[in-house]
């Protein structure tokens, strides 16, 4: 029982001999590289589950208030630009695609491809945020940001507003006031989403620098794969946010 404490180097199991580990990448407490990889991606998925539930709370709130104040939600949704929202959706889906390609490059050990994919992903991510910034600033100008400066003018008097959106139906003041809830949820949901994007772009930058130096294309691409999961998850959230926030009752 009192054997020396110096850790014996882990001996790769026979069946995993094909994967013969680079010792530097195998952390001491794992038996095999495969086990380490599976653990990492499983951990990542569990983290994404917490993210689902995190956004879930806001989706529940959205569902309730949309049913209660449908007219206000439909009207407020029309102040958003489908063009900007749609382009952003395309941008994000494309970035998801470049991310997936990055994972493929890492798996097939293409360093330049990986660097290019990551750089493109960052670029697309930043353009998403740029467009989002544009949309947000418009909301500030129009006093559509919930809080002290919020104004229902656009919805009470749509014709007086400078915006040329004839589709907005004039609402009674009491109903127009409920658009504040829509914008609260809009900012909370897209804000949380944007926050995830910002964090993602930060991590991507680090990954890019490391990938430039040749990391991840040496057969150890777990980090890239797991980051890919995160990035795709952010994409999925947007896939739901887009129709829910931008496309309420556009046909009227």
């Amino acid at each position, binding site marked *: 029982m009192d054997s020396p404490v110096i850790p014996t180097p882990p001996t790769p199991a026979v069946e995993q001999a094909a994967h013969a580990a680079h010792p530097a990448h195998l952390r001491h407490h794992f038996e095999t590289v495969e086990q380490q990889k599976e653990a990492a991606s499983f951990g990542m998925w569990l983290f994404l589950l917490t993210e689902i539930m995190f956004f879930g709370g806001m989706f529940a709130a959205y569902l309730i208030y949309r049913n209660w104040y449908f007219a206000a939600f439909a009207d407020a949704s029309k102040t958003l630009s489908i063009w900007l929202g749609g382009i952003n959706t395309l941008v994000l889906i494309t970035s998801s695609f470049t991310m997936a390609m990055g994972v493929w490059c890492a798996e097939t050990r293409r360093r330049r491809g990986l660097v290019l994919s990551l750089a493109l992903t960052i670029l697309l991510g930043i353009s998403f945020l740029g467009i989002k910034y544009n949309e947000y600033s418009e909301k500030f100008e129009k006093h559509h940001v919930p809080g002290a400066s919020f104004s229902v003018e656009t919805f009470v008097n749509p014709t007086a507003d400078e915006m040329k959106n004839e589709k907005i139906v004039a609402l009674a003041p009491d109903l127009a006031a409920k658009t504040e809830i829509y914008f609260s949820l809009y900012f909370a949901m897209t804000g949380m989403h944007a926050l995830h994007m910002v964090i993602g772009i930060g991590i991507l930058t680090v990954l890019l620098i490391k990938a430039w130096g040749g990391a991840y294309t040496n057969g150890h691409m777990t980090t890239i794969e797991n980051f890919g999961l995160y990035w795709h998850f952010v994409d*999925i959230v947007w896939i739901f946010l887009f129709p829910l926030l931008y496309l309420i009752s556009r046909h009227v």
Partner: protein
Amino acid sequence: MTTIDEHHEHHIVSPKVYAVIFGILLLGTALTVWAAFTEMGWLNPVVAIAIACVKATLVILYFMHIRYSSTLMKLTVCAGFFTFMILIGMVMTDYISRAWGLW
């Protein structure tokens, strides 16, 4: 070793698959915008959500490799959405039935 398959061979998804999925996602986006401008009555939100669900499923299955992952991973993803549905569903029991009557 256990009742559910926990380990799985690593599968490399080819760029062709990614490209096809990418194409479908772009189509889906166009479709959802088109659907929003079409009068379908109560079906409008349903269609919007359905398209979003299909898109999300494709991303999960292919971009996120769940299609090629172990049963455990598949179950994990399902568990997440199941819990999400509990949250939504059970909260809704309250909000829907509040309007049913005096109490």
